[in-house]
């Protein structure tokens, strides 16, 4: 091919050899990243529960994260009654953000969310939380009545609204939540890989020609940091929106 440009198949970019164990419990790079992110998340939660009056270091960072969750996610989507969900949302946010940012750290450079297993699992957890909390808050009949027959809609439109709401609330929401995170991380990873491949090929062929793609690679890495933050934020705020819609009592409308 031109310049010896050889793009590896996608399966090669996200599959990692097993380091230890076998079968479903095999440990590979992605699993190690999961564990690392879990440790970071637990560390943030521990640091956030410290009671020092003048915060320092890790506690400061954790309180910033908690503040962000309170002001920018819960107050914007659920209002004060959503405060009990702060630990859940903080866990989601920290975990996703850690995994996304680890995908850009040199030598690690594997966004673990570019494999659908984890986004799908987290989306199922969010789905369970908002459905169970909605049923607990409004009762099973009230909850499904609220979803399927939203108040304030003309009677004749229920023919259209009810099936759409049924599919959208119970199936499309978790699917879109998982796919959004997964596809964003995979797309970012693929873009970076293609510029690495291009830079390498141009460097081998012409030396000087690699400057442009390499500069773009650096710029795109910066852009991917933004995407990593934004996707963690969007996943968390959508979880907040779904929970908020589920626990809102019908007379709020």
């Amino acid at each position, binding site marked *: 091919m031109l310049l010896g440009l050889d793009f590896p198949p996608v399966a090669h970019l996200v599959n990692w050899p097993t380091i230890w164990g076998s079968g479903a419990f095999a440990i590979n790079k992605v699993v190690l990243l999961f564990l690392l992110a879990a440790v970071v998340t637990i560390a943030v939660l521990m640091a956030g529960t410290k009671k020092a009056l003048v915060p320092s270091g890790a506690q400061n960072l954790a309180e910033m994260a908690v503040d962000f969750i309170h002001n920018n996610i819960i107050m914007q989507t659920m209002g004060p009654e959503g405060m009990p969900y702060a630990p859940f949302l903080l866990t989601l946010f920290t975990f996703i953000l850690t995994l996304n940012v680890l995908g850009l750290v040199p030598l690690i450079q594997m966004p673990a969310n570019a494999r659908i297993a984890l986004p799908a699992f987290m989306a199922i957890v969010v789905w369970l939380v908002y459905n169970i909390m909605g049923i607990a808050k409004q009762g099973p009949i009230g909850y499904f009545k609220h979803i399927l027959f939203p108040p304030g809609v003309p009677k004749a439109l229920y023919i259209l609204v009810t099936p759409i709401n049924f599919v959208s609330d119970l199936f499309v929401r978790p699917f879109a939540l998982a796919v*959004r995170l997964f*596809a964003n991380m995979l797309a970012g990873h693929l873009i970076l890989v293609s510029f690495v491949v291009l830079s390498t090929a141009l460097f081998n062929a012409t030396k000087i020609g690699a400057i442009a793609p390499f500069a773009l690679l650096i710029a795109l890495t910066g852009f991917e940091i933004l995407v990593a933050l934004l996707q963690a934020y969007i996943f968390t*705020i959508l979880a907040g*929106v779904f929970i908020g819609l589920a626990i809102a009592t019908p007379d709020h409308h």
Partner: protein
Amino acid sequence: MLLHLTLLHLTHFIGTQDAGELVKGLTAIGRGIAYGGAAIGPGIGIGIVVGNAITAMSRQPESAGQVQTTMFLGIAFTEALALFGFVLAFIVSG
């Protein structure tokens, strides 16, 4: 017209070339169409969302925070469609 010409060309191709190559080429075209088609609508949609958010923010700068949150939500919902196309492009390739 273009499709017709392509098909004529392809039927000619089948006789002379390996069928596996043809399937590979058609898969590549399918992937391109799947993602390209899925990107058009969300592209326009995100433009509308962000454009209106900017209008709202410049009219009422004091509500910028809330508009921004809603804007990100709107982008997330719109963008999901493009991402379905992105995933579909990989599914098509088998």
